[in-house]
């Protein structure tokens, strides 16, 4: 990070969130304040129910907090109406899920093209960009394969290509290695590391795997909806 005055990319300020479950209000996040600088690779760790996924969902703009604000690159996403928030996600957020969440009826290439259909882009440009991105994740030879014809690691790489093809400001990953064997998990983490270091992508990753989290530059620990500890990791 150069320049001390550069504002953080993500500024989470006083965010609380609770769910209603069977008439009972269950607090999930309590007054979270957190800054994520651009180019960071942040790991969110914590036991189940600690609120780490909820925090990730709030930063990604697929959930809304009960209180507080979340500003991404100066835009308070908690104030955006739903349709505008959808457009904001399409332009600014790349998602990586534990179970890849590819469209089973679409080929690898079509899955990667899918978010580009939301951008103003002609068909050829879309195709070329999706192809280049698949090559970047090492799947240049699997473009016409359907998800069911790919291994877990390959599917997750398609999902990562889908997440970065729109060149979003921020990548959110929820247990990206949770469904993979050790070897594939290492490959995925190495790829994410490259995205962060070579392409400067800001990544927020939820995991409860310590080895995965150690790929990050810093780790936030959550417990019972509160930030519990913050550790900076040596590069």
């Amino acid at each position, binding site marked *: 990070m150069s320049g001390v005055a550069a504002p953080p990319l993500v500024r989470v300020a006083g965010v609380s969130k609770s769910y209603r479950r069977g008439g009972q209000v269950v607090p999930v996040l309590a007054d979270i304040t957190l800054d994520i600088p651009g180019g960071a690779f942040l790991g969110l760790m914590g036991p189940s129910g600690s609120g780490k996924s909820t925090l990730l969902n709030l930063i990604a703009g*697929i959930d809304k907090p009960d209180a507080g604000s979340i500003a991404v690159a100066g835009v308070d996403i908690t104030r955006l109406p739903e349709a505008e928030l959808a457009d904001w996600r399409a332009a600014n957020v790349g998602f990586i899920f534990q179970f890849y*969440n590819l469209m089973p*009826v679409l080929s690898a290439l079509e899955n990667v093209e899918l978010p580009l259909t939301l951008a103003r882009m002609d068909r050829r440009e879309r195709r070329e960009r999706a192809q280049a991105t698949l090559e970047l994740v090492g799947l240049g030879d699997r473009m016409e394969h359907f998800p069911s014809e790919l291994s877990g690691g390959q599917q997750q790489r398609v999902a990562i290509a889908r997440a970065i093809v729109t060149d979003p400001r921020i990548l959110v990953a929820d247990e990206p290695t949770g469904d993979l064997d050790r070897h594939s998990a290492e490959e995925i983490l190495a790829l994410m590391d490259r995205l962060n270091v070579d392409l400067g992508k800001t990544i927020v990753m939820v995991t409860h795997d310590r080895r995965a989290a150690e790929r990050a530059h810093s780790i936030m620990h959550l417990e019972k909806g509160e930030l519990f500890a913050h550790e900076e990791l040596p590069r």
Partner: protein
Amino acid sequence: MPVPLAYSLRNLRARKLTTALTAGGMALVVFVFAAVLMLDAGLKSALVKTGQPDNILVTRRSAGTEIQSAVDRQQAAVIESQPEVALGPGGVPIVSKEVVVLIALPKRDSGVPTNVTIRGVGPGGLALRPQLAMAQGRMYRPGASEVVVGRTIAERFDGVGVGERLRFGGREWTIVGTFDAGGSAFDSEVWGDGEQLMQAFRRPVFSSVVAKLADPGSFEALKARLESDPRLTVEVKRERAFYEDQSAALSNFISILGVTLSVIFSIGATIGAMITMYAAVANRTAEIGTLRALGFRRAGILGAFLAEAVLLALVGWAAGLAAASLMQLVQISTLNWQTFAELAFRFTMTPKIVAESLLFALAMGVAGGFLPAVRAARLGIVDALRAA
């Protein structure tokens, strides 16, 4: 921005059996719907083809059908001498004074006697019906006890081959030929010389007078004059309109019954489509959550599932319409309640039926897909993603 259509289409292809069964249900409904309309169109086309645009047909006022009509010789002479009537070679008016009676003949397949129209035709009768051509044998000779039979009569009744004899009106009539009237109602008739048939049936009066107009535009003037002439008690219609009116009762019955049945069936098919689409939404909840996370709006999700239901209906429509088209090979013969005579016609496909059945199928698709699509669009992103 809509979800790409390929996504909806591929999902239909992915669950082939469900798609086939659901579309099959819709296809059956489209088939019934189209077949009924084709039946109605065939009936109308047979009767409309029967009339020539420049012919008029005169019957007794309020008779409605030729069988209930009587026009005496004096009245016929007045009609014949009108200046609007076209003249043939030698200045003879092109007019046919006709007598129409019914006889019962046994049907070939069932042996059941059925009413058949016998038409006694005047000298101008053939000039007035250029659609008529001999298929076999020759035309009857005026003054002889000879008749010719229409194509569908020859196919459907016993004892009507060329050279065979029919007994009616106290005489034996030799069948000397078979004619093809181009699928019109005349194909279901037996024709002979008008004067001979009047004698045989002891009829002093004609049933109708058919005349060709020199100028089809003069119809209204002629109609007004003849219908207000105190010597006449007649009704003047264009021949085509007359035959159209003949089909009204049967046509209404077919279309009302058919459309009512189709609509009832369509409720079943629509519910089938709805169940299929609800299942699709339930199975793909995580996909819906993912699409929303990627930035597709609720409207896009609604559109994708609605498109899927509409595509499903289009598959059903295409299959149903294809099956219905095959019905064009089938000929139907039934009693026309207005003339009490047998009438044969074909299921007839028209562009209008193609369009109407398409709208009908689309309506089923939209009705079946709407509620499931709304459910898909209303899913919360986080809850939907958790369904993975």
